[in-house]
């Protein structure tokens, strides 16, 4: 067969393979979404616990504690929520195959996520109560800790995706890794908004 002719069998095989991989990516996204829905129930359960304790406990705040500071957490919130927009832009760049644009905004997302974690650590170290200080202390550190763990996971996933972006041909089979990491990040964000309202606003 001459090199200029296209083997019809091969081109049909390629079409089937492409359809097969597209379906695989869709399967993975479907599975990931289901996983996130399930994961959100853990946070939902913690939120329910928080609400029950807050509304029924006699001594809610530990001795000497009058409430939580709002300023720093509010700044952290703005940073985290904004980072959702930043990661969205990063995805858009990738979709248009602008790898350096993607990496820049992706790195910015990671920086904002890391800032959030840093801010959380600073807040924790400045607090006058610990996890064993009553139900308030316990639920506060449980919720913010679990959420922080998810933020850390998100940043690590972003790091891995960043590294992978340097592998040639990485996106030949689709952008599932980036899409999933981004979705996870939005999820982490939404959880934080609820958490912020429950713990910081509703005092």
């Amino acid at each position, binding site marked *: 067969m001459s090199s200029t002719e296209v083997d019809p069998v091969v081109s049909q*095989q390629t079409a*089937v*393979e492409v359809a097969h991989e597209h*379906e695989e990516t*869709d*399967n*993975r996204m*479907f*599975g990931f979404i*289901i*996983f996130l*829905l*399930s*994961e*959100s*129930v*853990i946070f*939902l*359960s*913690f939120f329910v*616990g928080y609400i*029950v*304790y807050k509304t*029924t*406990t*006699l*001594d809610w705040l530990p001795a000497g504690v009058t409430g939580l500071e709002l300023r720093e957490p509010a700044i952290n919130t703005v940073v985290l929520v904004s980072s959702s927009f930043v990661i969205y832009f990063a995805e858009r760049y990738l979709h248009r195959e602008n790898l350096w644009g993607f990496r820049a905004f992706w790195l910015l997302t990671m920086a904002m996520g890391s800032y959030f974690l840093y801010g959380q650590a600073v807040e924790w170290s400045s607090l006058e109560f610990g*996890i*064993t200080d*009553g*139900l308030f*202390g*316990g*639920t506060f550190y*449980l919720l913010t800790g*679990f959420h922080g763990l998810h933020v850390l996971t998100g940043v690590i996933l972003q790091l891995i995706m960043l590294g992978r972006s340097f592998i040639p041909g990485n996106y030949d089979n689709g952008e599932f890794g980036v899409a999933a990491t981004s979705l996870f990040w939005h999820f982490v964000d939404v959880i934080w908004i609820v958490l912020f309202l429950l713990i910081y606003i509703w005092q």
Partner: protein
Amino acid sequence: MTNVLVDETSNNLNQPGEPESWRRFFTFSTDHKVIGIQYIVTAFFFFLVGGIFAMVIRGELITPEADLVDRTVYNAMFTLHGTVMLFLWTFPVLSGLANYLVPLMIGARDMAFPRLNAVAFWMVPVFGIVLMGSFLAPGGPSQAGWWAYPPVSLQNPSGALINGQFLWLLAVALSGVSSIMGAVNIVTTIVRMRAPGMTFFRMPIFVWAVMSAQIIQLFGLPALTAGAVMLLFDLTLGTAFFDPIKGGDPILFQHFFWFYSHPAVYVIILPIFGIFSELFPVYARKPLFGYKVVAISSLVIVALSAVVWVHHMFASGTPGWMRMLFMFSTMLISVPTGIKVFAWVATIWGGKIRLTSAMLFALGGLVMFVFAGITGIMLASAPMDIHVNNTYFVVGHFHYVIFGATVMGVYAALYHWFPKMTGRMYNEGLGQLHFVLTFIGANLNFFPMHPLGLEGMPRRVASYDPEFAFWNVIASIGAFLLGMSTLPFILNMVGSWVQGEKAPDNPWRAIGIEWLVSSPPTHENFEVLPIVVSDPYGYGKSDPLVSNADALEVAHEQH
């Protein structure tokens, strides 16, 4: 010419026609059929472990005094009996059956995420070892019951950080992770990988049942995880969540616990319902009566299962209005369940019944399930439950479901699909002996628990007042018989697998995609994907199930 549609990367095959090596069962295989069998065999091992704990329990209870083992040992026995039977036998064996059957039944080559599948399985022996390892922990294994209610579960007399309760929580947490992985996999597979022509209302009922069960896992397990994490923090860090001395609320733990653990029983029974729905049509040669209604009733059960959990807390810290509300919701769940029972009776009625081992177990399981359903309605009635809650009446009820219906349903499934899975026929005589011993043993063991509970014998007791001796002796004899009854089964399974008569593709002349390929199926299941053209359970008609039955078998391998 190579066949691009078939993935031949991990066959273990050296020569054409060479059967796959038995060693694949000990590897990190990603073949759903291998994983399914790995789950089933591992689970059965732990069934025997849990059974040994039961023998110790019944040995203690054959006399009123606590004279066989120390009370702490007895308490560990009933704790681990429940924990092992649920997390290391029931859930894994049902995962195994689902894993093996679902892709075949929907005409797929494998699960959506084969490697995730393998990881989920291999976690089972890991957390099994963690749980068994708790015998070596300071203070021994958990002795707080499988519910792990605080404050008892927080007492930690040994004072050690890594104690039996800690390891128990770790094992259960790992079990939860494994289960969630499995649930994501199964739901994705069923929703997205059905063969062309297989609409939702052409899926076999077993697939409906498994899908429903896994949906429950997805929304229920995380609530247990949350409660378990908080309990773990209380245990190891000294937080206040459930510790009343520190202002915590032990009843909140009960809510977290039962919010999952009640739906969990539907995770267990729904696949069994699916098995019954598959087997009765085959062995009565009639379609499943009211297929669509039976399918939808599974979803109704999923919905209702989420709002009945407080019936485990009728005697606990719950206000009267809550007890009444949940009494009503609990009773309501009997309606979709009853629909299924009547459908099965209507399926076999007027059919041409063959009493194979599988059918015997399915029928026996059905009868025991109906009895359990009736005691279930009694328990749903709050004033009635206040008398029998935490007595042997409850133990009798749930053992009728979980042994009578579930274990017997699993045995039925294993006999029915044994030829498909192993390519061998089992010995029918041994199967029937197994049934007779099991049915008699189960009724002898668990029926006496009902009068005991009515008379006021509490559960989880190592010793009891002498007036309860009569029924306890009968129960213990039944238990020992049940223990013995596993012997013909093990003999049959092992002996037949090694040297049973070779099985044809479809020994039961059943209608289903899995019966259109060889026994056992080839590694990739199908040469080409089947194209489904008719509804399931077409007994009495001669419509073909798929339009390309002849093309399904992978040509170059003969078994």
